[in-house]
């Protein structure tokens, strides 16, 4: 590992935050780097690296966590069919949704649905967005890496939390 990169200019960070906010607001949409770079006023070549340095996670992986977070909320709090939830949260196929969902949370969508039923009432006075953010699935490793760990029988911390 080379030496730490120089600190980022706060003005740049503020513009990168705007790209993150836009993904938060519309995580079901497609967010290719060219679109995110434009929001941030950064070149395509620099965007992904700058975003990862700022937020500790590559932009695409951040988007996946937000989609899964939304899907988890919809599973727990609505009666929408799982197929509808998959398409509403930005996946092009039910298969990809289910696979990514399991890779990230360690559970199937239907298992999360049955676990989460009583949850909204318990949280009471906590603003909903903050509840959801607190439950945001971690994705510190790439999905492909999670698959490899699962194949080896290694549990990631997120999986342990989810199954407890």
């Amino acid at each position: 590992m080379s030496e730490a990169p120089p600190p980022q200019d706060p003005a740049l960070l503020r513009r990168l935050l705007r790209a993150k906010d836009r993904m938060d607001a519309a995580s079901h949409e497609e967010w290719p780097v060219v679109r995110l770079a434009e929001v941030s006023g950064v070149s395509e070549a620099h965007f992904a690296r700058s975003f990862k340095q700022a937020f500790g996670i590559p932009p695409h992986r951040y988007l996946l966590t937000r989609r899964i977070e939304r899907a988890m909320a919809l599973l727990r709090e609505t009666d929408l069919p799982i197929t509808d939830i998959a398409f509403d949260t930005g996946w092009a196929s039910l298969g990809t949704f289910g696979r990514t969902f399991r890779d990230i949370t360690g559970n199937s969508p239907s298992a999360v649905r049955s676990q989460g039923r009583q949850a909204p009432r318990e949280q009471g006075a906590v603003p909903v967005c903050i509840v959801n953010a607190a439950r945001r699935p971690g994705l510190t490793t790439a999905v492909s890496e999670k698959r490899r760990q699962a194949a080896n029988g290694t549990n990631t911390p997120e999986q342990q939390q989810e199954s407890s």
Partner: protein
Amino acid sequence: MKQGIDVVGLYVRDQDEALAFYVDKLGFRVHTDVGNGGYRWLTVQHPEQPSFQLGLFLPGPPVHDEATAQALRALVAKGAMPPLVLTVDDCRAAYARMHALGVEFTQEPVDRYGTVDAGFRDPSGNGWKMIQGRG
């Protein structure tokens, strides 16, 4: 006297910009604006909440060394500071008014759990939730 929380502060990147935002766009009032050398104590107040002041403070000397100030400026710009919640009696009306004034909304008003909430940021990056009171 009444006991309780008097001032809670935010870090902002520019106090003039923050003052214009909180007063002109959010409708707050200036409570205290006092300069002392290079330091400026600036607080604003919600017009319906006279017992509470929101401080708008600039990271930097004499309170912080340059490295600490740089770290704080970065945290604010990344939206990493704690959540803030504003209660309004009509979220959609407040959204329409503030949006027209150029406030940067991160979430349009959404109906959920018997209320309506929206999200916005101040120019520095501090994130606010705006939630309609439940009557």
